[in-house]
């Protein structure tokens, strides 16, 4: 008898709590989140394609000095009070050692010198060849770093912990 009452009571309760028990994201939260995202885009005028390009260029730049996890890289614009901030979160696999960096920079300098000599070339061709070279360089780094990584234990750091955050402030 007591159980019967208890179950009845619970049923009545659950009836009145139907709305609350649906613990899904409320319409209000969905609206707020969607709005925040869309306003961010409205305010910056940066298209997804441009953002993607910026992301890739940043990776290329930083890859010269650090071995990065490209897949997990996260680039976002966020609103903080009155300022807009560029939030960049990059998992660093390891920092490259000086020798590697020197090699890359040297190769880059040589490339630049070569380009300045080949001034007859079309501008478009120039930029194309530059981009191609960049990609090749990156691939080489990845291979060479694997070998060196085992020797340089000092520099190798934990994958998960080492997340670099770079914040660039832009005016609104």
């Amino acid at each position, binding site marked *: 008898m007591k159980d019967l009452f208890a179950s009845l009571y619970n049923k*009545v*309760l659950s009836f*009145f*709590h139907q*709305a*609350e028990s649906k613990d899904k994201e*409320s*319409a*209000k*939260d969905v*609206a*707020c989140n*969607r*709005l*925040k995202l*869309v*306003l961010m885009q*409205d*305010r910056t005028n940066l298209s997804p394609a441009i953002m993607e390009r910026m992301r890739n260029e940043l990776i290329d730049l930083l890859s010269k000095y650090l071995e990065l996890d490209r897949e997990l890289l996260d680039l976002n614009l966020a*609103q903080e*009070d*009155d300022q807009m901030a560029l939030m960049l979160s990059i998992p660093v696999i390891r920092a490259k050692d000086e020798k590697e960096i020197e090699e890359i920079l040297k190769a880059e300098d040589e490339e630049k010198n070569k380009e300045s000599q080949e001034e007859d070339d079309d501008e478009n061709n120039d930029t194309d060849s530059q981009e191609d070279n960049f990609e090749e360089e990156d691939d080489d780094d990845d291979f060479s770093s694997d070998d060196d990584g085992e020797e340089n234990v000092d520099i190798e750091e934990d994958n998960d912990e080492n997340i670099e955050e770079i914040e660039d402030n832009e005016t609104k």
Partner: protein
Amino acid sequence: MTGRVIVITSGKGGVGKTTTSANIGTALAKAGNKVVLIDTDIGLRNLDLLLGLENRIVYTIVDVVEERCKLRQALVKDKKNPNLSLLAAAQTRDKTSVNADQLKDICEQLKKKYDFILVDCPAGIEQGFQNAVAGASEAIVVTTPEMSAVRDADRIIGLLEAREEIESYKLLLNRVRPNLIESNDMMSVEDVVEILSAELIGVIPEDTGIITSTNKGEPIVNDDESLAGQAYRNVARRIMGEDVPFLDLRQPKGFVEKIKNLFTKLKGKV
């Protein structure tokens, strides 16, 4: 005397710019200020209807600009309140009939004789908006707690911030439905203020009385019983510099709500 020129704008249509203009104007006039309302929605004029002045309009803003009449001839006095005047928009012309400089000039002239010049802006961000904003130094951005209205308000705020002559802008949140906010189905006042990061000057509840007041050509601020009317009167007082607390818009709860609450409390104890 130097009056204050305040533009009432929103970006999106249908959020209550004209209703807001009519009510704030009437409330300011009732409080003893000399007020002119300018309808800049040329081709789609409505402010005259909301004030019940549609039969009294002889000259419009276009007549003033094209020098068919003097500015003071085109000002239509309100039926009840001699402190309130309307400069109507022309219905048969379009928004290119008046330019920004001409509107600025009209505002400058009116500033000398009136305390407040409220400019009712057309929807959109094109020429009509640029004209309406031209003579103003303050702005009230009207929005509702809906995504499209908030997005458009954000755009308008961006445009207002880019204009040096606009010294300040405030947010007026219209058509707020407290019961939907309470059930988390609608963005709250705080949400909208946070997203737009703008200062709030008023929160107006959704009120069916607005429909009847529009039908009668009688602004709802004249109805002492109405909550929306009270909210608009408070906005007018804030414009005049008073520090007025925001109304508690929650309606008294019905029987079912009370029972629900009782069960919520019981569940907490069990």
